[in-house]
């Protein structure tokens, strides 16, 4: 099974979630993160002292899916998260050894 980690623009999150749902990915874990990359940040000024914020709010989705679903999931994300502007984010794919559903201790693909 594969873990898909997608870092996306917060404003695209709802669309991405929906698209994933459509290709059959339901389980996911979401966190608020801040991203640093090519996208340039902004400057804030407090009483004359400027400071540059180059960490921008992003949403990180993590979902572990059976190998066969990975592609569809990635496509769903790409389709909905892309705005074509710098800062759209990244997707990373990693191999996961095992998954366990805590509720009933199911393992492997069945647990996803």
């Amino acid at each position, binding site marked *: 099974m594969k873990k898909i980690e997608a870092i996306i623009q917060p404003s695209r999150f709802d669309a991405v979630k929906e698209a994933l749902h459509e290709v059959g990915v339901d389980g996911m874990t979401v966190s608020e993160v801040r991203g640093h990359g090519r996208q340039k940040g902004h400057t*804030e*000024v*407090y*009483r*004359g*002292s400027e*400071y540059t914020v180059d960490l921008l709010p992003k949403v990180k989705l993590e979902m572990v899916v059976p190998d066969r679903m990975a592609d569809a999931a990635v496509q769903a994300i790409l389709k909905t998260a892309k705005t074509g502007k710098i800062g759209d984010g990244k997707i990373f794919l990693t191999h996961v050894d095992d998954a366990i559903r805590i509720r009933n201790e199911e393992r492997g693909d069945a647990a996803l």
Partner: protein
Amino acid sequence: MRRLFLGLLLGTLLISGLTAAPACAQSTDSQGAAAGSASSSASLQEQVGKLQQQVADARSSGDNAWMLVCAALVLMMTGPGLALFYGGLVRKKNVLGTMMQSFILLAIVTVLWALFGYSLVFHSGTRFIGNLGYLFLHGVGAAPNPDYAATIPQETFMVYQLMFAIITPALITGAFAERMKFSAMVVFMILWTLLVYDPMAHMVWGKGGLLNATLGGVIPTLDFAGGTVVHITSGVSALVCALYLGKRLGYPHEPMPPHSVVLSFIGACLLWVGWFGFNAGSALAAGSLASSAFVATHFAAAAAALGWSAAEWLRNGKASVLGAISGAVAGLVAITPAAGFVGPMSALVIGLIAGVLCYLMVAKVKGRFGYDDSLDAFGVHGAGGTVGALLTGVFAVRAVNPIFKDAQGNALAVGLIDGNARQVINQFVGVVMAWVLAIVGTLVILKIVDVLVGLRVREEHEIQGLDLSQHGEEGYNLEV
């Protein structure tokens, strides 16, 4: 600590035993009387005599209502007002420590004031400090003290003035925010109240004080609600503290943005509201002078908010919320000494000047000199107070407040635009006195406290934050 505590307790009981005595005999009940039915048998003269007392009571009722509300408003300025204004400006890890500094002053200064502070300021004494005639508030009761306020109980006057004695040291805490030991702060403030605030307040407001404009001072300085007494002393002491303590770890390289401009916003608004108690209340009665001071206060705040915002807009292309609220506070500071002396249009001008000037102090001057006045206590209160005190000498007019009179009781010119150029010089002297006292007094006290308890928190405590290291708490526990 423990022994001391017991001693204090004992002392207090002792005093309460000694002074519980007779005290002030509550003027004959006039409550029901107010309507007083015209008993036809009573002679007219008697009726008129009775009426005179009732009128005095009625007048006192209005003025006392006003002054008690003002006292409450000024309390609200310190807590929650200033505590939030400052608390929002620091990093999250220091929010409680910062607010605590204001709060504990509420408690400490109150007790000091009750024991001897009020006496040192408002009892007549030398030109520099009052004597101890009002020790433990002996003789401070229902009867008015006509030297200060003829229509309200002296107790009201006392508690109203106490609120000023509280907020003044609290203003200083903005300068050494995020790095001073709590214990050191407590000791520093006790000494500062005694050695800087009490003398300065006595000189300007106390009977026979050196700078008192109406009660026998030598150099009549105008300070309606505390430009010199409150803002210059605190602002200048703040600068001294900032220089003495040194910069916060990481300043100015690390970003230290306010953790919640929202909190600061609430604080600034409450300061604005409370400032009506501060300035209009300084009329010490609910007459038209209070109205005039109220209007001047509001107008200066508004103009200064615009001034600061406009300056920012010109320089950064944006007006910030922190700028607008800082501007309002700067205007309130600058109008404080002038509030009861200047007309509404002058108030707009004073506010505008203060807004722009304090912006420059904070955004340019501070950066150039490189001191770490963390929350700009000097930039706003020191600078704003100074310019306000000087401009009071310029804009004060007898039409608003005929404070100076000749032998025949005719009002004399007050400020520069009224035809009295001298007053600017008097104001200048007052300002210098306040600066000198603040610098010298604060330096001495810092030295003492540094030796006794040490001023700064340990480096790891500064990194950890004051909330945890000084108080064992956190401001927010938002995890489920």
